Structures are given as structure tokens and as C-alpha cells.
């Protein structure tokens, strides 16, 4: 059976060259980067090389990059390290749990929290953010792109606001690093989290950008690695994998974006040809990420039917459910409950061929015909 992975937003396969690099590091570079001897020096160099690659890709300084074990860890280190008990935080209702649960905890510890709902385009409106700013506002944390909708926030505009009011801006950019251009010189983001496995790098490694001059409290205690913000012996191969994967993604960013856009257009054309009834939710989306509703069809059923045909997509938030529940994120973005329940996230990437896209569209049309009959029966 043909197998086509269309869940690029969940994670990506690891690039061949990245695998080769990591394997060679695992085989030959095992020293503890903190050790003084040659073994340690070699490992240390691997990490610093990756830091340079990462800084170049994002257009920031290398000392502004902290390697972490995940995007989640980066988010925790940034928010918990910054916020004090009387601070006011502004964020959105559709943040990832690694933001949402941290700020909810901070709220319990005395911080004040304002959560803004996205608009119909799946964006948190900069004007609304500005309205909520008070004299105690310390932090604004908004995701760059939403994981379920694929919508992209106007971070440049939000950064202008935070600059103006002298507030710290943290951006969870896990979904879009390596997918759209991010220039930290141009965009005055103060802190930004990313994760390697979203851009064809390995799992278990992420990074946090912390602009010079921002002083974070230590939330993990240990031997002082990564500016004492993420202590613990470094994941050398993983960090090297992140560096290479990120520079490959940014070096080929324009051509990849064009290619993925083309695949996306082909997919729309194909499903139009099959006369499939669908609603594509967001206009300005990450390339290749489609939050797409099929009216009258149970999304969970559709996901399973596609899976049984070797096509992997994702559905809302619940990953295993016999009783389909609508995703709160879709509801917050103004999508009706029925349509939310019939909405899948299909995400394409550079690994796909035009032939793959045609196959997915064809199988989708066959399955929809079967499920439609059932829903009218």
C-alpha cells in the first residue's frame, strides 16, 4: 500500500544529510563539551558551530541562542524565567499547551493574565493587544503561526507595539521556523522558541532566542550549561542536527515555499475537479498547511479512513476519540461546531511529489463519496 505522510505540521521526517551528520557525531564525537581535553573541545565545537548556523539563519547573535530539549522546554524557560508575581501577561486563547499551561500556572502564582481570541482570519489583532496594555504589562506572548489553523500573526506589527511600550515580546515560532522567513534584526521579537523536528531535524532538541539585555531567572538548576538557562550535558548530535536542518531550511526557503505553494494549489485544483464539497478556513496560511472542513462528514471517521489508505492527516485536538469533539481553537476562530467537527488539518511539505498530491485527492474523493452515502443513509 502507498503511504503518504501529510502531517508535516505535527512533525517531519529527518533530512538524510542531517541523519548522516548526527550518525557521524554519535560515532566519533562523544566527549563532554564541558571537558577541558581534546575530546571535550571537539564536542564543544560541534555545539558552537550549530549556534552560529542557527544565529545566521535567524539573523541574530550567537550568544542569543540557547539550545533546549524541545520547543516546550524553550517556552517554559522563557516565560517562567521572566514573569514575576505582580506582572501582567497578554496572550491568546489558542496558544500551545506549553504556553497556556505555563501562563495559567503563573496566574495562580499571582500574575495577571489577559487572553485574546483570534479573529475570523485566525489572527490575534495587534490593536486589541495594544488596548489591553497596562502599566504592569511585562510580557506579551503570541504564537507566530497557529498549529491547527495555519494562520500567521502579524508579529512585526505586534513587535512595534511592544517596542513602543517597552514590553517584552515572546513568540512561539515552533510552527513556522524554516517555513517562512524570520529575520530577528528586522522584527523586534525579544524571545522566540523553535523546535528542530518541525523543519526536518531530529526530535528532542529545540532552541530559545533571548535578545541581549534580557535577564531570565534560572528555572532548571545544574552545571551552568547554556548560560545556566538550560543546564545538563548537551545533546551534541541533536544540536548539530538542529543547526544543519535549520540552515538547509533557510538556505532553500524561497524555493521550498514556492514548491509547497504549488503543491497546495494542485491539491485544491484536484479536489475541485472531483467536485468535493469543502471549506478552506484561513486565507493567509503557512505554506502547505490546510485547515479544511468537509461539511456533513465526521472528521474523525475521515481521518481513520484516510489512515487505512496509508494517508496520514490530523484532526482537531483529540487524537483518539470515538465521540468526536470539536476543537476549541476552531470554535474560537468563529468556525461553527458542525464544521469544526468535520475539519481536518492536511499539511504538505517538500517531501511530497505532485503524484502524491493527486493520489491523496483521489483517495479523499473516494472516501468522501462512501462517507457521504453513510451520512444520508
Amino acid at each position, binding site marked *: 500500500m502507498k503511504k503518504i505522510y501529510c502531517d508535516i505540521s505535527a512533525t517531519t521526517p529527518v533530512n538524510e544529510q542531517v541523519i548522516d551528520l548526527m550518525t557521524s557525531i554519535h560515532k566519533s564525537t562523544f566527549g563532554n563539551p564541558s571537558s577541558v581535553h581534546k575530546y571535550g573541545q571537539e564536542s564543544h565545537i560541534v555545539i558552537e558551530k550549530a549556534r552560529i548556523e542557527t544565529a545566521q539563519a535567524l539573523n541574530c547573535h550567537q550568544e542569543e541562542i540557547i539550545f533546549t530539549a524541545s520547543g516546550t522546554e524553550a517556552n517554559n524557560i522563557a516565560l517562567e524565567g521572566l514573569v514575576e508575581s505582580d506582572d501582567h501577561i497578554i496572550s491568546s486563547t489558542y496558544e500551545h499547551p506549553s504556553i497556556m499551561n505555563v501562563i495559567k500556572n503563573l496566574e495562580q502564582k499571582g500574575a495577571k493574565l489577559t487572553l485574546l481570541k483570534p479573529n475570523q482570519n485566525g489572527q490575534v489583532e495587534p490593536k486589541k493587544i495594544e488596548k489591553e496594555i497596562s502599566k504592569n504589562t511585562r510580557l506579551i506572548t503570541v504564537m507566530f503561526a497557529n498549529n491547527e489553523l495555519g494562520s500567521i500573526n502579524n508579529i512585526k506589527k505586534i513587535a512595534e507595539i511592544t517596542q513602543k511600550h517597552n514590553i517584552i515580546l515572546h513568540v512561539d515560532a515552533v510552527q513556522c521556523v524554516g517555513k517562512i522567513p524570520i529575520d530577528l534584526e528586522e522584527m523586534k521579537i525579544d524571545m522566540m522558541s523553535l523546535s528542530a523536528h518541525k523543519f526536518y531535524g531530529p526530535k528532542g532538541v529545540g532552541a530559545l532566542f533571548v535578545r541581549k539585555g534580557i535577564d531570565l531567572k534560572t528555572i532548571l538548576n545544574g552545571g551552568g550549561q547554556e548560560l545556566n538557562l538550560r543546564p545538563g550535558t548537551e545533546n551534541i548530535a541533536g544540536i548539530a542536527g538542529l543547526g544543519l536542518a535549520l540552515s538547509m531550511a533557510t538556505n532553500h526557503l524561497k524555493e521550498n515555499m514556492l514548491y509547497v505553494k504549488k503543491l497546495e494549489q494542485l491539491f485544491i485544483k484536484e479536489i475541485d475537479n472531483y467536485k468535493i464539497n469543502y471549506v478552506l478556513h484561513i486565507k493567509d496560511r503557512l505554506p502547505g498547511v490546510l485547515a479544511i472542513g468537509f461539511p456533513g462528514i*465526521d472528521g*474523525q*471517521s475521515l481521518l*481513520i*479512513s484516510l*489512515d*487505512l489508505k496509508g494517508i496520514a492527516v490530523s484532526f482537531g485536538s*483529540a487524537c*483518539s*476519540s*470515538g*465521540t468526536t469533539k470539536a476543537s476549541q481553537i476552531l470554535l474560537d476562530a468563529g468556525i461553527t461546531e458542525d464544521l469544526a467537527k468535520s475539519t481536518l488539518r492536511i499539511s504538505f511539505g517538500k517531501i511530497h511529489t505532485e503524484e502524491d498530491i493527486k493520489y491523496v485527492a483521489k483517495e479523499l474523493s*473516494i*472516501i468522501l463519496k*462512501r*462517507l457521504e452515502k*453513510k451520512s444520508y443513509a
Partner: protein
Amino acid sequence: MHKDKKRVLVAMSGGVDSSVALIKILEMGYEAIGVTLKLWENRDKKTNKVIDSDCNSLDAVNGAKMVCDRLGVHHYTLNFIDLFKSKVVKNFSDEYFSGRTPNPCIRCNSIVKWEALIEQLDVFDADMIATGHYARILKDNNTYKLCKGVDEIKDQSYMLWQIKKELLEKTILPLGDLTKQEVRQIALDHKLINADRNESMDLCFVVDDDYREFLSEFAPEKIKNMTDGEITNEEGETVGKHSGYINYTIGQRRGLGLSFPEPRYVKKILPNENKIIVSKKDSLLSNGCYLSKLNWMENISFPLKCKVRIRYNSQGADAQLIKKNNTIFCEFDNPQLAVTPGQSMVFYNNNSIIGGGIIEE
């Protein structure tokens, strides 16, 4: 879309029986999909963290996933928590508060494991379901009969009487022709790690088999109204005090706090009067009872002579079913002990189930 093989959803608990059921389904030449039904989450009262029970543990779900993976079969977890709570657990609680003794597993089989799972066939584009129950479905002149499993000790047909007859044709019970011994051997031959795992007979939603504690969490407002009451003899004379009628079942001897030269047993529970009537053992014998919620597997006419089982492990008693007062009454040939309202009575003709009902007064 044409499939070369019929597709079967195999309900997987992660235990040895359902794992071997999957193996048999594949051997029979079907395409299989493993599904584990998530029915309940027990939460620790203090920490609110999920504590697993046997039916639903991570261990069990992982066990099912491992077996499916080994056999190259897709596996999905289906969340039936809401359905299970509203249709099975709520009934369990209501029955106890009505002074009756429910059998939630039987309700769960018919409502969740059959009706709800068969509704999922469309989702999976599947044709049939299979479970690891020890019972058989035999085809006889285009009708399907639900029969006892070959292994008399393990036979679970009693637990399946409530399944709607028309669902039998969509069901495969691959273990019905096997003994537990043979099933264990198949599991060992396939090097299934769970081959030696003991199965639990406890209710999956009740921690430590303590249903009283469960009810106090599930229906706290009802428990609040529960007060001590009188224990009387059959003549209506008070002989002791009970601690709330839900704590007792028909036929119970222990824990009554009574001292008589001859033991006393719970004969009747009267929730409206908050009273429990006790008697000597002889008086627990009953000549018959009414039945409700009947489900028929075969076409029948009354009076009907058959063998009836009034509990899971009973041998079966000769009886006659008759129509009486617009419902069905069962007359036992010989009086039966502790005929318990709320429990199931299943009617057999030799090995096959004719039907069943819920025992009333």
C-alpha cells in the same frame, strides 16, 4: 471501493483472550483492525490524577497496541467514556439506590461493545466486529444462534444475552470453539507477553472492588440522604440496624451484625421504607419471579420450557416461562435460592440462548 477481504474490528482489551481473538481473525483470512474502547478514568481524589483500573489501564492499552503492532494491524483507541457513563454507570448507580443488584458488564456488552462498536463499522469501512468472549454464534437456516462456548467453565454466553439478535450476523466470536487452555497455548506459541496475565473480574470503573465507595463519589447527593434503618424479620419485628440499604444484596449473610443461633440472610430490600428484611435460608427459596427488559434470540411461544440461569456461574435450573399480567413470569420446577432483582436471567435450550430478562420481584 472494493476490498479483497472482509474487514473486522477486533475489540482489544490487551488481555490474552482478545489478543488470541485477533490472531484467529487473521488466520480466518480477514483483514483486522484492533480497537481498544476507553470507558472510564478513575481519578485520585487528592491529586486528581488518573489511576488506572484493569479494564482501561495504560498497561492494557499498550498491551493491545503491542500485539497489533506485532501482527501488523492498525490499532485505534475509541473514547466511549461519555456513553459508558450515561448508559452503564448511571444505571448501575440508579439500580443500587432502588435496592437492586445490577450487572453493568452485561449492559456494557450490549450497549457499548456491540451497538456502539457496530455503529463504528462505517467509520472503518469494516464489515464485522469480533471479541474474545467464550461463546459461539452458529448459523442455522439463515438465522443466527448465540450458543455457549465449548469450554464449559469459561462459557460467557450468559454475559451476552442482551445483545440484539440482528447484531449477531455482524459478529465473530473466534474463541467460542476453544478452551481457555488452548487459548493460552496459542498465546504462548505466538510469544504473547500477556499469555500468563491474570484477568480481572472486577468492575472496570470501581477501584478495589469497593462499589460503596464508588457510589459515594458518583452520587454524593444520594449518599448524603442515605441513613441507617431497621432490619426486620419476616413478621415485621425489628431485629437490628442497617447502615444504609445500598450496602446489602439479596442472599447476603455476612456483615449484618445479627446474632441468631441459625444464620440470617437478606431476603428483601425496601428502599422506600429504608428497611431490610432478613430470613432463614429456607425462606430465601423462591418458586418464581417476574421478568422485565426481555430480549429474544429465537422465535418462541408460551408456555416455554427451558433451562434458566439466574447468575453467571449457575448450572441452570429447569423452568417454565408463562405470560402473566401482561409480562413474563418464570416458574421454577424446583425453588431457587436468592433470586435477586436487577440480576439477569438467561433462558437456554440445550446450548443455545433463547433469550433473557432482568429479574423483578
